[in-house]
């Protein structure tokens, strides 16, 4: 099979997607199947200087980091680099929440910082002609397996079903809540969560956004071992256009009801369910998990 040529282009970024990618367990296999014409850390066929001053053949353009008309890489505007390579490549992948939605650095001092196609939820007109060839892998940072397997899907010509933000549904149709080991505390509304404990659900008081965040963090574990919510850290919704929201460790409530409810669950349904579950008393969930 043909070696797929990748260009990894960095916008305004912290490089965490680059390093999260390096956590892919079968990286050697990956590097046998794909060639980086440029990567910000790995040896690549060309230097950045050569990439920006020539037109090198390339199949997939990977963009990490947010985009601003002011931002330059090797003295060339990031938008010009994108305009040069994007029409020629087969696919574009926005790698991470910054490249997809603007992310955290949309608050930086640069002018008009956005993702490639989205400014938070709003669709951008600027690169509209590239919309149909783009796949978004959101996340701050991306999960390495999700990026890598998407690239293999591109290589294998597999048609991916995408959501409205161009994210592959196979990874983003789930919520972070799916597979969380603290699920039962959520379901039965045992709302006494304390940090530093195996028990409890962070949704009720501590800002956890897992029930309304599209991602597979508890299905495809991080570093193959864990997830934030499993250890007791709230989900901050880092795959979503709204990341980062404010007051991330607190659940915003109106009259005692969380402002953001689980996806697809209306307030009335939520209150009815909460009423029923409150009637239960489940001793197993009231005590410490490992105690007698």
């Amino acid at each position, binding site marked *: 099979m043909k070696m797929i040529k990748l260009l990894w282009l960095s916008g305004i970024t*912290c490089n*965490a997607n680059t390093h999260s990618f390096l956590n892919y367990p079968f990286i050697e296999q990956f590097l046998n199947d794909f060639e980086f014409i440029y990567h910000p850390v790995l040896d690549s066929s060309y230097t950045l200087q050569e990439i920006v001053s020539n037109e090198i053949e390339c199949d997939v353009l990977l963009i990490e980091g947010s985009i601003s008309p002011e931002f330059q890489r090797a003295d060339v505007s990031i938008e010009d680099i994108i305009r040069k390579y994007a029409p020629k490549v087969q696919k574009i992948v926005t790698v991470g929440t910054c490249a997809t939605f603007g992310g955290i650095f949309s*608050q*930086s001092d640069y002018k008009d910082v956005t993702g490639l196609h989205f400014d938070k939820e709003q669709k951008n007109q600027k690169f509209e002609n590239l919309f149909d060839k783009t796949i978004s892998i959101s996340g701050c940072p991306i999960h390495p397996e999700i990026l890598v397997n998407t690239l293999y899907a591109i290589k294998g010509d597999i048609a991916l079903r995408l959501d409205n933000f161009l994210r592959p549904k196979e990874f983003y149709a789930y919520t972070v809540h799916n597979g969380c080991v603290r699920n039962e505390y959520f379901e039965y509304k045992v709302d006494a969560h304390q940090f530093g404990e195996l028990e409890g659900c962070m949704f009720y008081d501590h800002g956890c956004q897992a029930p309304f965040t599209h991602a597979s963090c508890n299905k495809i574990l991080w570093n193959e071992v864990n997830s934030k919510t499993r250890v007791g850290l709230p989900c901050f919704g880092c795959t979503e256009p709204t990341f980062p929201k404010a007051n991330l460790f607190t659940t915003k409530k109106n009259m005692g009801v969380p402002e953001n409810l689980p996806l697809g669950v209306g307030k009335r349904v939520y209150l009815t369910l909460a009423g029923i579950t409150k009637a239960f008393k489940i001793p197993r969930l009231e005590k410490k998990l490992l105690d007698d």
Partner: protein
Amino acid sequence: MIKLIEKIEGEAKLNFSFKDEKIDFVTIEFMSTRNIENILKGKHALDALVINPRVCGICGHAHLIATVQALEDCYEDLKISNKAKIIRELTLNFELIQNHFKWFYLTLLPLFGHKQQVLKATYPSQLMAKAIALFGGQYPHTSYTIVGGVVCEPTEMDIIKLNHYIDETIRFFENNLVKTDSNSFLLSDKIDKFLEYEGDLITILQQIKEDDMLALGKSYDRFISFGENSYFKKAKSIKTKVNDSVSIEYVKESDIPSSFAKSVTFKENYYEVGPLARAMINKAALVKDSHRKYGDSIFSRILARVCETSQLLAHSKKLLERLDLSEPSYINPNVDISKINGSGTSAVEAARGSLIHKVELQNGIIQNYEIITPTQWNLSGGTKKKQGVSQKAMIGLSDTKTAELVFKTFDVCSVCTTH
């Protein structure tokens, strides 16, 4: 002559001027900044725990630890369990270790004409990332340590798993970097004898010797370190003379006209930070012997970074023995952070050296935030009369390729510098 230095977590421009075919002066320019300090203004204090790891994708965990300690410093009387302190120290160690492996196999090898060894970089660094994820849920970009402790409650099973990750990383080190058991390695105190071993580190060090590069990269021979924990000390070392009376109040940041990075000095002087500085302050025997013979050259700098990897692995094992799982992971602060008015400062040792955070809070809202990163120390740009540490290390070299090598022995992190 301007040279674009690539693959340093971003890029920098070095502008060399030559006199008599030798580098006479060099300016260092970073071309961008994200101004994270501004992003933090007006935010809820705890949100800094989520924002600040995003300063850097390779050493963001150090920024997390620095953030939590700066916030805790705003309190007058905050209790943190020993257990939480140890866990924080462990995960920070793991991040340092993964950085050092990546630097050696991805950055350093190509500078000596070898191919990058991607798998040798990623295998141990993935193990260390797993070790962080055991406590933090994921790596990079966890925010698992919060004001009052850590959010996780590790079990005995987690510790068994963790020991496997550490042991496997130690084994990797022993099979690749220096082919001997870690105990004999850690006891080595004579550099000439040490070079009789085999391994990837030894290959590079021998190459430096054979290629007559032993004198390269010397700077002021002046070191400083502000982070304190069970392994690192707060002190400075002028040549080999260690003095522990250093205070952050004498650290000063100033603008560099040609660059987005800021210079940083201690009592108006530039200091080197990082593994060589820490080894000099800790009087690490092998590094000291190398320093005695070859000074603060690239030889000692490379040796120190790799030695620290092994030392931190061994120290982490010791720390784990002190971990008492029955202690609380988290102690609810007696005052809610939304009632806190005050300022806090922290210093931690990150992979590349001392990282300083300063925060001012009013009713738990961030009024001001300052970050001073390790690379700023080493890459501070001075004038011809008063050069920065890495500037001085490049003066007198005859070509820009060697200068790039010297520059990269400081393990430059562009994203941190342009926070």
